[in-house]
Each structure stands twice: as structure tokens, then as C-alpha cells.
């Protein structure tokens, strides 16, 4: 089977279907780490990657948190940007048309109330240049006293149901890792008609300035990202992929092709490169090419044949 005979990387079919989003290869870049795409054009031909997930959008433009907004931790960083963005309309009017036609764009959206999520989904889902939507559910629900949508299965079900009703565009739900049972959250989304799942979002974290006896971040809490969270993400992708039939986009500390292949083996159909884009804006292109090279080396004619091929001795 695998390893039977090596192929040339050019002979490998790298295309994947992520819940109705056709990708030329399985590498996307994660929302919030890739701006609106153009920022990366001096460093990366966007056609070398499967596509990108744009910075999360709200109906209205939004300012972020006061500084300090970022901190460093071992093999990781914390951020509390708070989803600063230009708003849905400016994105559609100014950001999308600036991109080359053959770049696949997934729009990420978030809001603080279900009706507003649905409205944003309706507007974005009807835009031809938007290949699909990613619902960022790691956001506090104002009406429920600030509980994250993604942390309460009933709230999550209600959210996905209403957004599903608002749009027929391919719909990914980005799951929070800050839950006890990721498989349950995955099943809820599948049951309400999501076309795919993206996981994991950043891990809620706190870093302390011991000299000042204060949190490093002005917001106190932030989201941990980077290589430190990769094994947690792999575990959650593996668990979610065994719980649902819809495709999964794996996210968490990917910095090279081998990292990405780990996610494919654990059941992800595609991946997103996140924090590594900050350190090297060309890295996602190399990850994409490296996955095909891995597939070729191990005799897989199609990258999608790697999905879920983790071999374990237990069921």
C-alpha cells in the first residue's frame, strides 16, 4: 500500500474537497494570521496554497483591545487582539476585489448575537468570490451573559442552525478547544447541517509578569497558539474525526509539511497554517509543496488518501 513505490511529486493529485470548497491543495491559512490576503503577496504567490481564511468579520467595523495585546510563552504566543476588523461591507467592497481571481477565499465571521451572525452569513454567503464561510464560534454570547457559543452545546446548536438557514454557501464551524468533550461539539455541528469543521481555535491562556505582579496582556486572558498547542490540536482532530462524517480542517502549530501531514493522518482533510505566517510569510507555500513531496515519497497518488491513515493498535 503505502511506501510501495515512490512517485514524483508532480504526479500527486493534491486536490481536496473541504465540505464543498474545492481546494487545489489542502493548505489554507488561518483566520487572523493572514490579514485580508494582500499583505502576503510580496512574499507568497497565493496560488501556491489551497486558499486562505480571511480575518474574522463582524457586521460593523471593530477596534481591538488596548495594548499589550501579545505575549510570548514557550514555543507559543498569546494574543488578545479581540477581532479588530474592517467589517463585512468594507471587506466585500475593498478587500475581495483586490485579490487575483483564482485565489480561494473563505470568509470568517463572528458576532455577539445569533441574529447578527445569521445576517453576516447571509451577506457574505451571497458573494460569488467567497468560496465558503467559517463560523468563528469562540466568541462570547452577549444575551447569555458572555458564555462562548462554542462552549455550550445547546447554544452552538442554535447558532449553527440559524446560520445554516441563512446561507447555502459551504459552511465550516471553527471549534473552540476550551471544552471537555470536543466530539460532542463536533456532532452538534454536523447534526445542524455544517459542511465541515475547523479545529482548533486558540487555547485560552494567561501569562504573568512576575516583577509587576500583573498579567502580561491588558485583557488578562489571551489565546495560546503556535507549536506548543499542536499535540492538543492533533488529539482533538483525531477525536472529532472519529465522531463525525463531515470533513475536518486541522489547525494548531503547523510550521512545516510534516506537521501538516500529522493532521491529515489524524483525520483532517485539509489544514490551516496560523502563527507560523507571522514568522515566515512564505511558509504556507512550502507546507503545501512538502505535503505532495511526502505523499510521493510514500507512494500515495492522491493527498486525500493520507486522510485518517493513522495506524493504531487500539480501535
Amino acid at each position, binding site marked *: 500500500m503505502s511506501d510501495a513505490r515512490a512517485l514524483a511529486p508532480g504526479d500527486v493529485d493534491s486536490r481536496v474537497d473541504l465540505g464543498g470548497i474545492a481546494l487545489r491543495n489542502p493548505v489554507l491559512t488561518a483566520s487572523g*494570521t*493572514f*490579514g485580508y490576503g494582500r*499583505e*502576503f503577496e*510580496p*512574499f507568497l504567490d497565493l496560488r501556491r496554497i489551497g486558499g486562505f481564511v480571511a480575518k474574522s468579520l463582524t457586521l460593523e467595523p471593530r*477596534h*481591538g483591545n*488596548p*495594548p*499589550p*495585546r*501579545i*505575549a*510570548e510563552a*514557550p*514555543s*507559543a*504566543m498569546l*494574543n488578545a*487582539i479581540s477581532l*479588530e476588523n474592517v467589517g463585512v461591507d468594507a471587506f466585500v467592497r475593498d478587500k475581495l476585489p483586490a485579490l487575483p481571481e483564482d485565489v480561494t477565499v473563505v470568509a470568517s465571521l463572528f458576532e455577539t448575537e445569533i441574529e447578527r451572525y445569521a445576517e453576516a452569513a447571509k451577506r457574505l454567503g451571497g458573494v460569488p468570490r467567497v468560496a465558503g464561510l467559517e463560523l468563528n464560534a469562540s466568541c462570547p454570547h452577549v444575551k447569555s451573559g458572555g458564555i462562548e457559543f462554542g462552549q455550550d452545546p445547546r447554544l452552538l446548536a442554535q447558532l449553527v442552525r440559524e446560520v445554516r438557514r441563512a446561507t447555502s454557501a459551504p459552511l465550516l464551524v471553527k471549534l473552540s478547544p476550551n471544552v471537555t468533550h470536543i466530539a460532542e461539539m463536533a456532532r452538534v455541528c454536523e447534526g445542524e447541517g455544517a459542511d465541515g469543521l475547523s479545529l482548533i481555535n486558540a487555547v485560552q491562556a494567561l501569562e504573568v509578569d512576575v516583577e509587576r505582579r500583573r498579567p502580561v496582556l*491588558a485583557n488578562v486572558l489571551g489565546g495560546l497558539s*503556535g*507549536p*506548543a498547542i499542536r499535540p492538543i490540536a492533533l488529539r482533538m482532530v483525531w477525536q472529532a474525526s472519529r465522531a463525525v462524517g463531515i470533513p475536518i480542517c486541522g489547525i494548531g502549530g503547523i*510550521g*512545516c509539511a510534516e506537521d501538516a501531514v500529522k493532521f491529515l493522518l489524524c483525520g483532517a482533510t485539509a489544514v490551516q497554517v496560523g*502563527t*507560523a*505566517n*507571522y*514568522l*515566515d*510569510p*512564505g*511558509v504556507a507555500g512550502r507546507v503545501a509543496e512538502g505535503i505532495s513531496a511526502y505523499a510521493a515519497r510514500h507512494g500515495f497518488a492522491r493527498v486525500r488518501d493520507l486522510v485518517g491513515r493513522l495506524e493504531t493498535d487500539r480501535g
Partner: protein
Amino acid sequence: MAEAVPLRIDAEVVAAEPAGGENHRLRLAVPGWPGFSPGQFVMLSPGARAAVERSDPLLPRPMAIYRARGGERPEIEILFKRHGRGTALLAQARPGERVGLFGPLGRGFALAAPGERAVLVAGGTGIASVFELASRLRAAGTPVRVLLGARSRGDLMGEDDFARASLPLVVATEDGSRGERGLVTDLLERELARGGPSRVYACGPTPMMRRAAEIARAQRVPCAVSLENPMACGFGVCLGCAAPLAAGGFALVCRDGPVFDAERIAWAGLP
């Protein structure tokens, strides 16, 4: 200066030497260097650019470009203080080794108009942002005075370079171990009260820049500051380096700065 696409290379360390106390100096070979405006910076990663595989520390460090040498084998010089893990590793880099480099980045200082007199005020490592500025101002015919402050003499950087370049430098230390005892902003206040300087340039710790801005405002002299917020990317996408603006909202230090008109900044909102 037109915005050139920044270089992204593993730069060879040409020289690495201690520069007094916890201070270090790195000279890096930068083939293809596009030139820079004083006040621009580079992102440096200890070890080669494979920062992604060498994941701890994860983030590159923004560093002012101290000065540059053109010609066939262009070099830049970085002057920095050992502060944490990242700078400690950079301080260990030996000639022949490589460090990840991305830059030049950001918007630098605007030079003074003909007929102006400039005073440059720097605190601690802030001196690294103003050496090239002082040189270019003087080359453009603008009379320059540089005021340098530090906690103690061991924290001073670059003093000899200013002397060698015959750039007038006045030093103040908080403990009086070198130059005048006191704050560098006291020197600035005196300098401006005497009249003469028509423009202030400041780089250093936030309280120092904030005070410099107040003094300049009181004398109705424009003041440019160079901010040093932490950042992950250096090119406007992580949004980590946001600085609050007096008019509301935020500017990005990496993309809109690091140099700002001091009046634009909401100082109370800066950590």
C-alpha cells in the same frame, strides 16, 4: 524614501562583540540591502530563519537599525541590550553563524527642514534608533545635539561611536555615575527653555517619551517619537503592536510607525 520590499534572509554574522554592561553589538552581512530610513527596524531571529522549526523562543525581535554600510558587501549594525531569552541567544551569535533577518520595516523619521535645529533625546537602548538620524541630519546641514540618558553608566550604549563621529552628545545618568545626575528629559527641558531647537526626536522607554512630548508641547516644538511595542510579525498582520491614538482607534507600530508625531499618541493608553 520609496518603500522597498524588505529582505528576508539568513544574514551572516560578521562581527559580534560586547558593547559594555549587558549591551551587545552585531554586524550582519546583508547582500541586496535596499537602504533604509533612520528609525526603520528589522526583525531578528536567533539562529537561522528556520524559526518555525526552532520554536523557542518563537517570535523574532524587532531591532532598530543602528547604522549601515553600503558598497559591494553591505552590512548593518544592531546595538541591543540583553534582556530576555531572545536577546540572550542573539548575544551568543558568533561570526560566521546566521540569524534570521526581515527588513527594513516600518516608517522612519522625517528629516528636518533647512534652517531648523534638532535635538535628539534617547533613553537606554533608544540610542540605537537615533545614531543614523543624527548622522544624516548633520549631513543635511541641520545642527544636532544628542541627549542620552540611562539608569547607570553600564546601561549606556554607543557613546564612543558618537564621539568618533564628532556628534555632540550630552549624557545624564539617574545615579550620576556618568555625565549629569538626573533624567535625560531634564536636559531636554533646559535645552528647549534656552531656545534654539525647533524639532525634537525621541526614542526610549514610554515614560521618557511621554515626558519629552510634554516638554516639547509646552515649548510649541514638534516632537517625533519612535515606539517599541512588542510585535510578532513586523508587517501589519498580527495586530499585536497596536498603539492607541489621541483621535481614537489604534495605529500599528510596525506599519504606521514606529515613528509617530507625539501628538497623535494617546499616551495614557500605552503600557
